[in-house]
Each structure stands twice: as C-alpha cells, then as structure tokens.
C-alpha cells in the first residue's frame, strides 16, 4: 500500500514536470489575450514599503497610458510578483513569471539579491526588464541582453554622498553609521574610501535598533562635525530624532534609502537641514503636478516611484510603437530612448543608463528640496 502511494506520488511529479517542460513557452511564444506588464519587488514583509512605492509608480503609468490609449491591447492590471526582496523567495517565483506568455515586460526586480537569481531565468525566456532600484554594479553580467537599469549604481552614489557632505561642511570630520544591510554596508564602503582621512569614527546599528544612546555618545566624543548614515528611512528618522534630542546640531546626511517623505513625517523638525543623495528623484520634486494627480488617484509616491513610472512608460511606449512580443519590446528599449520624469532613459550596451546624475537634496521647511546634481 505504502509502495503504491510512493509510486503514485512519483508518477504525479513526473507528469507535472513533463507537462511544465512541454508547455513552458519559449521566448517567442505568442500571447493570445492582453499583454501584461509585470512588477517584481517586495510587496509583503518588512521591505514591502519600497516595493509598494515602485508598484504604485507602475500602476500610475499604466492607468495614464490606458486613459490616453483606450484601444491598447494591454491588461489594465499590473502582474504583481512579490519576491519579498529575498533571493530565496525570488528563485522559485522567477520561472513562473517567465512561463506567463502574456507577460511581455517586467519592471524590477527591486533588490540586487533577488535580481541575481531572477535575471538568468528571464534571460533564457527573453523577458526584458528595467530595474528601478537594484544598484549592485555586477547585475549586467546576470541579465546580459535583457537587463536595463534606470538608476546609477552604488559605485556612483557613495562618492557623491561623500562629496555632498564635504561641499556643504567646511573641514568636515565625519562619523559613519550603517544599519548592517547589504545596501548600507556597500554604500558606506564607497563613502569611506572617498572621505579617506576625514572619518573620525564608525558604528554599526543593525536594522531594528531603537536606542541610539551609545552611538550618540561615540559621535559626541569623536567631535565629528557631520554624520553619514547608510540605511533606510524608518531607522534614520529614529536616529536623527534621538541625535537632535541629545542636543547635537551636527550635519546629518544619508543616501537614497532615506530619501522618502516618510522620513520627514517620522523625524519632523529633526529632519530639517538633513542632506540626502540619491540616483533617484522624488515624484513631488520631478513633477508636483503628477505627484498630486497620483495622490488623487489613491497612490502615495515614495522613493523610486518616479523611476518605476519611467521604466513602465518606456515599456508602454514600446508597445504603442507596435511591439507586441518580448523580443521586439527588448529591442525597442535597448535601442530607443524615452524622455522620463527622472531623466532620459537611454541604455548602453550593458543596459546601464547613460547621462544620469546622482542628485543632492536638503530638507527645508518639511520638504525635500533638490540641490541639483552632485558635481565632482
């Protein structure tokens, strides 16, 4: 009896596997219904805020596109791929996305780790992607011809963040703090190299730290004139508030993980004067009109919403130009350009965006104010 059960399970698995292989679409499989735009990123779990920001950008782009092109053969619903920002989750999901024949383009993946496991799958399925936020410099080697990135990599942001501080603080003595995430450690490394002798101390406050007492005591003892925090907005807000409540008035600077209106909401007065760098640009800064329209439509823009909006628009332009399969859409985005809100998207042979800048921002009167590109 037991043996029969085992045999039945083995047979079922075998049938399922062969049918999957038999029916898995090739790169040129045709879609018999409406074309779908996919978004991949963390939509649940602790990293979900960033993924939702980006998904909202894609939804908004799709809504505007369909309003202007009523007869377009595009599904009004974004095909959502929730990888929780986790490579272990992304690994099993990517083949399912690749097998969806009507998914002709994907905005994402949002995170570098999840990108590394997903990109080879999408490459073999010929599915074009534009990531709005995965900034690890090695990603083109994983995605090759289908890979495109709408932002500059970490190699650019770290040095720019360091320069933003040295250009705004005379004879800066800098204390570095990071939240121990892959993103923050990588960013701080390049900041550290650029600042060289100006670093007077460092501390690591792992994600979830709520009490910064000891870090603040270290900063005060180091006589630093600026602190650069690598990490995300929620913890940055807690940190800067405690720093200001301790009586410290030194300059506080951070990267794109903190560039979010939620940071101002959480830190309130403590956010005033904070310097930020990002290869991204907030929707409110890029286009207050569209940002207001987006809020009215029920979606709150956040960090990387603009880049996702631009990426989705580029794909939609490709479809509008008559491209209806993965290969032709990939060719279109690889060779053409698109005037986005954040920048003109024009990709080089590696899929990297050219002519982009890392922007500097300052928080003034509760608003993120663009200082302009951070010059060398």
């Amino acid at each position, binding site marked *: 009896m037991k043996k029969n059960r085992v045999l039945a399970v083995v047979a079922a698995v075998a049938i399922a596997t062969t049918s999957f292989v038999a029916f898995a679409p090739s790169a040129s499989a045709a879609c018999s219904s409406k074309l779908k735009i996919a978004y991949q990123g963390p939509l*649940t779990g*602790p990293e*979900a*805020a960033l993924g*939702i920001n980006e998904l909202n950008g894609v939804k908004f782009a799709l809504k505007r596109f369909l309003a202007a092109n009523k007869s377009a053969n595009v599904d009004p619903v974004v095909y959502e791929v929730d990888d929780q920002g986790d490579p272990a989750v992304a690994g099993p999901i990517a083949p399912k996305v690749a097998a969806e024949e009507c998914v002709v383009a994907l905005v994402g993946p949002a995170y570098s780790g999840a990108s590394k496991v997903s990109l080879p799958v999408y490459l073999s399925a010929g599915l074009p992607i534009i990531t709005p936020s995965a900034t690890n410099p090695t990603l083109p080697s994983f995605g090759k011809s289908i890979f495109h990135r709408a932002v500059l990599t970490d190699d650019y942001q770290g040095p720019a963040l360091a320069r933003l501080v040295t250009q705004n603080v005379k004879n800066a003595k800098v204390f570095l703090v990071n939240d*121990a995430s892959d993103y923050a450690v990588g960013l701080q490394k390049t900041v550290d190299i650029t600042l060289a002798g100006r670093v007077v101390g460092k*501390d*690591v*406050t*792992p994600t*979830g*730290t*709520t*009490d*910064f*007492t*000891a*870090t603040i*005591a*270290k900063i*005060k*003892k180091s006589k630093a004139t600026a602190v650069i925090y690598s990490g995300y907005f*929620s913890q940055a*807000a*807690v940190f800067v*508030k*405690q720093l200001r*409540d*301790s*009586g410290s008035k030194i300059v506080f600077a951070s990267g794109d993980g903190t560039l979010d209106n*939620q940071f101002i*909401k*959480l830190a*309130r007065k403590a956010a005033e004067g904070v310097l930020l760098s990002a290869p991204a640009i907030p929707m409110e800064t890029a286009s207050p009109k569209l940002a207001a329209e987006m809020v009215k439509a029920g979606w709150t823009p956040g960090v990387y919403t603009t880049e996702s909006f631009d990426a989705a628009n580029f794909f939609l332009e490709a479809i509008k130009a008559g491209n209806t399969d993965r290969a032709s859409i990939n060719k279109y985005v690889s060779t053409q350009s698109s005037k986005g809100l954040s920048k003109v998207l024009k990709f080089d042979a590696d899929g990297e965006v050219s002519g982009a800048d890392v922007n500097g921002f300052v928080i003034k009167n509760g608003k993120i104010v663009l200082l302009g590109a951070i010059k060398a």
Partner: protein
Amino acid sequence: MDFALLHDAFWGLTFDGIALGAIYALISLGYTLVYGVLRLINFAHSEVFMIGTFAALVAASGIMGVKVEDDPRTGGSMILTLVVCLVVAMLASAITAVLVEIVAYRRLRQRGATKLATLISAIGVSISLVELFRIITDSLPREFPRIMEKTFLFSYAGADIRNDKVIVIIAAGLMMFALERFITKTRLGKGIRAVSMDENTSTLMGVNINRVITVTFFAGGLMAGAAAFFYILVYENTSFKVGFFLGISAFTAAVLGGIGNLKGALFGGFALGLMETWTSAVFGTAWKAVISFIILVLVLLIKPTGLFGESIQQARV
C-alpha cells in the same frame, strides 16, 4: 573596544540604560506571569505590546486631538493627554491579551492539547497580528506626536537627565510596585500564586482557574500596554514589527531573571537594558546582542533556572 567612552559617559549611559530597562522589565512581566501560571511562553505577548503602541497613537490623535505638526502641550492639557494615552494603551493591550487567551489558548487547554500545540498556536497568533497590522498600516511606520517638550532637567556627572526618561523610570517603578502589591496582597493575586504552585490543588481549594488565567493575561497586558506608551513617548514612532525585537529582549530579560519569577523579570529587564547600553558603548552597537546573549548563556550555565529561580510564589519581597 572603547572603555574610555564607558568611563567618560558612564552616568549618561547608565541613566539611559535604566530607562530602556524599565520598558524591558514591564514587558517581561507579562511573559513571566503567563509562564508562572500556565508554563507557557506567550509568543503573542510582543504583539500585545505592539497593539498598545498603536492604541496610544489613536488615543493621542483620535481622543485628545493632538496633531503631528502641533507644538508640544503644556500644563494640565499635557498631563491629561499623557494619562489618557497611558490608560488607553494599557486597556487595549490588556483586552488584546485576554482575547488572545480566549481565542488561541483556552480551548486547546481545556481539550488537553500538548504544550507544543499551544506553542504553535501562540506563534500563529503572533504572526497573524503582525501581518494584520502590516496590512492596516501599509507596511509603513507611524509617528507619534510630541506631547511634551523634551528638556534636560539637570546634569549629573556629565549625564544630561531628560524629563521624558525620568517620567518613564518613575512611572514604571510605580506600575511594578502596584503589580507586586496586587500579586502578594489581593485575593486574586493569591489565586495566581496558588495556581502557579499547583493547579490541581488550587482547583480543589476552590480557585476558579479560568478566572485566574484571565486575570493573569489581563495584568500582563496592562504592563505591556504601559511599556508600549512609555516606549512611544520616548521613541515617538511605532510599526507593525516594533514588538519583534523588543519582545525578544523582554523575553530574554525574563529568562535571565528566572522565568515565572516577578522579581527576576524586573531585575532581568533592568540588567539587560544596562548591559545593552554599556556593551554598545564599549564594543559598538552591532555587538550588543552578541555580548548580552553570551552573558545570558553564561548565567544560565551557572544557574539554569535564571538568577532568581522559576516561580511566582518566590516573588515575595
């Protein structure tokens, strides 16, 4: 290693460590009370705390009409707002704790389920509540308005003593004292101690077990709610995942002191708050968990039942 920093800023770090420890101690009382009575680790207790923080938030903005952009309140208005937020947070957490007991544990207990089944039920409730609040809050943290201006009252040996932390330490001390009186002096408290000593004999002596368990969860929830308000008063933000890290720390504090023992939970809370702050200064904040947990393991190796032993009846002072 920076022992010079610990030396130079010792009193400042110690004061902040005590304030943090007071919050840990209040949460750990809930773990210890439930364990003392049911021999069950209530993993949903961290979410009882989390709900308390959101209740304080709702009380401030919804009941007292405090807006995030408002200036801090002063005088009677400030005291009233603080008290209302505290009471609402305590009640919300206490009611949540009782509901968790009724929904997730009572039926399992009455049907003689294994401890493992109850433990899984506890973890299930915890995850459900976290995900529920993640959905409600759209995964975003929420800010708490500044109700009182944070000012330095005085300076002692280089330590700046801030008003909000003084309030936390004094109020937490009063809460703990009230709980201790309740457990040792009242009829219901005696019931809790009797059940923790021997459930069967207590039943034979006429103790209503279900009532005692409900009161235990309620009392633990009240303390977690107070901790939630003090936390949000000092740190001024919360999120769906706020209970996770604080819950682990508070649970550790309870084990360090001897889970099931009230005095142990108090001592464990303050000890962990101080250890975390001091070790962060000496070894760096990233090392605080490593050092704190090594100390916990060492203590348990020497004294497996924690510093004060495992029993509520030992809580007499």
